[in-house]
């Protein structure tokens, strides 16, 4: 049997070199939000830029709802927060502890794991479970690459299993999603910017999955595998060995060629036999004691390398909430590409590692800074994004849009009537039956809205009918256009109506007072189609 042995290789460390020693970072016990503001403010004053003021409370509430539970606050919720001074910490705590947090993060991480490939397999059921139990990110990583023995039906290892047919894509996605480094360029040639990133890295990462195979839907590993060679651009044959992105290798103590071939053949025969009997016996062929995916997890999460793993998720989540990464692009985290706030990134990564990779803590912390709560308005040319002087306006994701469209169209279940338990059930029922529409583009770094969107919104009869379907009848029960406008603006835009809103819609409703139902419908349609609804601003 092949035994594996980790070699510590003094190779190129691709991860950004640590900028300062641990004792030079801010103390461990400072709240995350404070640490963020400390570093962001320091850079702002260095650049002599005065940041935008804090955003109005109603908009901050909307932002937090969208970012933490993936929907706008319903009219009743938005109004409730407006009645008393806003306690941001309390609101964040409530939102991250609500079922919506798990649902929203399952959606977000499902997209993240697909790595821009809409056709990649979904692992959402697993993610939903994992976020419900607040599973640590390192454990989720092991689950997803099939390196844990977690029982359960939710099949996280589908992440690898469904990509086995395209091992190059699998290699790209694992490196990019978990370690922030897209190494596809190295598939055919050296990385254009990091000259030391040779093809060895690409084939080295791919080798961790070389023994994996799909056995009746089970992700197994062969005991014997020939890693083989690849031909570099010069046409020279180079031997492949398992190598992590840091340059650390796992050297297989391979059998002599002849014996290895015999062992591979014998194992193939055994697998074939087991496959024939599988329907009857449900027996799986034996695998190695400590497979190569486990080797990968061990290497990636050991003391020397885990920083890379932690930084990548910190940067991805930072990008999600701040609209611009601490390192841009998020899949180009290498030594040549410096972070805008290196000490902050390092502190956040340390905090994540020392708190057992607790994503809930990290997410709650990221949205608790003053930098997060800035206004998105800026007069004149905006300062560079990496200063975080002004909030970035972010388009809603398809899932955020779909649920928000429903919450705006049907705010009643969210009203504070009946017992808390009854309310929870009503909300759950509404959120479970709301699907995700396919015509809203998944925002990316290079966001463009699709042609489908304006088309559907103005032409699709079904969609037009469902827009405001429950809201309009309830508006009709209110007396006078002022109340109707105020309620509609709360329901769709989650804020009090302005004088401008009252004038615009007041005139519109007045003109069409012979057809009040129709007029209210058009008002709600226009509000839901407005840019203000379409963005997290």
């Amino acid at each position, binding site marked *: 049997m092949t035994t594996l042995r980790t070699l510590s290789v003094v190779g190129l460390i691709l991860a950004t070199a640590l900028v300062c020693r641990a004792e030079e970072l801010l103390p461990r016990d400072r709240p995350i939000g404070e640490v963020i503001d400390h570093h962001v403010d320091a850079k702002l004053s260095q650049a002599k830029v005065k940041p935008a003021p804090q955003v109005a409370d109603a908009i901050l509430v909307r932002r937090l709802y969208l970012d933490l539970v993936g929907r706008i606050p319903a009219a009743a919720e938005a109004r409730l927060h407006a009645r008393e001074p806003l306690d941001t910490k309390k609101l964040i705590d409530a939102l991250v502890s609500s079922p919506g947090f798990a649902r929203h993060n399952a959606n977000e991480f499902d997209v993240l794991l697909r790595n*821009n490939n809409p056709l990649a397999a979904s692992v959402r059921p697993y993610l939903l479970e994992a976020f419900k139990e607040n599973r640590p990110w390192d454990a989720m990583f092991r689950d997803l690459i099939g390196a844990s023995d977690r029982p359960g039906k939710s099949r996280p290892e589908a992440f690898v299993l469904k990509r086995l047919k395209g091992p190059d894509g699998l290699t790209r996605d694992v490196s990019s999603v978990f370690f922030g480094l*897209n190494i*596809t*360029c190295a598939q*055919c*040639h050296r990385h*254009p*910017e990091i000259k030391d990133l040779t093809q060895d890295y690409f084939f080295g990462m791919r080798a961790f999955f070389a023994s994996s195979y799909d056995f009746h839907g089970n992700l197994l590993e062969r005991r014997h595998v020939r890693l083989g060679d690849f*031909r*570099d*651009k*010069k*046409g*020279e044959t180079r031997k492949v060995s398992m190598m992590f992105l840091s340059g650390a290798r796992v050297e297989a103590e391979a059998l002599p060629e002849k014996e290895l071939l015999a062992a591979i053949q014998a194992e193939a025969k055994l697998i074939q036999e087991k496959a024939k009997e599988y329907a009857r016996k449900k027996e799986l062929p034996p695998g190695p004691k400590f497979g190569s995916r486990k080797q990968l997890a061990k290497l990636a999460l050991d003391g020397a390398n885990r920083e890379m793993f932690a930084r990548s998720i910190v940067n991805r989540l930072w990008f999600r909430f701040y609209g611009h990464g601490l*390192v*841009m*692009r998020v*899949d*180009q985290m290498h030594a*040549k*590409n410096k972070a805008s706030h290196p000490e902050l990134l390092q502190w956040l990564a340390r905090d994540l590692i020392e708190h057992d990779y607790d994503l809930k803590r990290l997410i709650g912390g990221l949205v608790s800074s003053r930098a997060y709560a800035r206004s998105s*308005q*800026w007069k004149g*040319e*905006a300062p560079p994004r990496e200063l975080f002087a002004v909030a*970035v*306006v*972010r*388009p809603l994701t398809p899932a955020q849009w779909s649920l928000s469209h429903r919450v705006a169209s049907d705010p009643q279940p969210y009203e504070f009537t009946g017992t808390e338990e009854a309310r929870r059930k009503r909300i759950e029922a509404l959120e479970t039956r709301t699907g995700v529409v396919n015509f809203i583009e998944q925002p990316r*770094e*290079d966001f*463009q*809205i*699709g*042609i*489908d*969107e*304006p*088309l*559907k919104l*103005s*032409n*699709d009869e079904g969609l037009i009918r469902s827009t405001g379907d429950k809201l309009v009848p309830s508006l009709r029960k209110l007396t006078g256009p002022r109340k109707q406008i105020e309620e509609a603006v709360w329901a769709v835009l989650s804020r009090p109506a302005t004088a*401008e809103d009252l004038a*615009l*819609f007041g005139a*519109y409703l007045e*003109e069409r007072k012979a057809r009040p139902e*129709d007029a209210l419908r*058009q*008002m709600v*349609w*226009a*509000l839901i*189609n*407005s*840019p*203000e609804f379409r*963005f997290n*601003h």
Partner: protein
Amino acid sequence: MTRTHPTQHPWNRRVFLQTGAISALGLALPDLFRARAALHGRLNGQAKACILLYMTGGPAQQETFDPRPDAPSGTRGEFRPIATSVNGIQICEHLPRLAKLMHHCAIFRSVWHGSNTHGVGVHYNLTGLKPPQRRAGEPQLDRKDPPGIGGVMRYLRGDRNGLPAAVQLPRAVGDQNNAMWAGQHAGVLGARYDPLFLFDETWVPGTSLPGFVPARDVSTDRQKGRAGLLGSLQRRTTTQAEQDFARFQQLALDVLNSQKSWRAFRLDDEKPATIERYGDNRFGRSVLIARRLVEAGVALVTVPWVYRQSEQNFDTHNKHFTKMKSLLLPPVDRAFAALLEDLHERGLLGSTLVAWTGEFGRTPKINGNAGRDHWGKVYSAVLAGGGIKGGQVIGKSDRQGGLPADNPVHVTDLFATMYRALGVGPETEVIDQTGRPMFPVQGKPVLAAF
């Protein structure tokens, strides 16, 4: 199909509305400049429109328009050159249809910019301008970028007949890592000058968009009132992202709700033989739509090479010759040749510039995987129509096809040549969103091309 010539149409109503609304909306001075540029923007080039065929991935010069049968071994390709309609000009044997049309074409064999990075090459070959320095990765779309040729033409020429002046279909120029490289939108000029992008992967070019029922041309009161309300909300937006969204939303609604303008995107009234002539595939159909769009008054249509997987573009690091022969060259030869013939037969070739380029060429050296790698030191481009003198070769590469040997043409000069055909010169000024003037033509036109 009636033949229309773009210049015969007066400015459409929407343009006037935009300019008329200036004082009412209290727009700033830069907007006034832009509006003035738009009104005075009758460009006097012989070409009234341009179709840009963009070969994503970087096509090998040796296996297209610059065959090197005498190159030393290790660099010499597998294909033979063939004679063309012009004495003394030879091109690759897998472009037989184009070979018969070389009298329309000027081949540039010494184009260069020096970069071997896709994103940089794409930017150069869609803007004719140097891309800004980036911190990491390849250039991504950014509003601070220089404008693509589509954005510039939309700015200078303005929209006509309910159609935006610039359109790109049926996909973005990108690969598995970069959905859309920089250089494709209007950059600093602002989203209002972005081309209309039709990138739906499920859309068969030439058919209706899935699920789309065009609205009636005459709006009902309901539609008018609703659109008016939305317009008011759109105008209240204050951030750039929201304004960009609102403009695109409006543009898409304008184009698609007008049956007349949408007709240009449909191929129902084309003969099956015509579709066959261009090739009944995503690329061929899109090139045919490009011709229809030009007839309908669009100034610039970009058609990038289509592919489903990254190994199906011109980035042929491996199995270069197999892919070129079987997958890449035949559909390009067919569509490009059909376009030239069709424009010629319709009397439109004189007023339509057709350009063929990609981000760079490929290495003289054939690598260990029977592939060629990135090569920005020299590559080939082709211009035809729009006042370009056909039947000539401009510039020369050296024996290996690795460096310009004679008359090097920097890509900015290639674009200056294209712009000159379109009536845009080095003195032509555009004003960016912040009110700063900039000059989209940075190179010197190659006068021998005309």
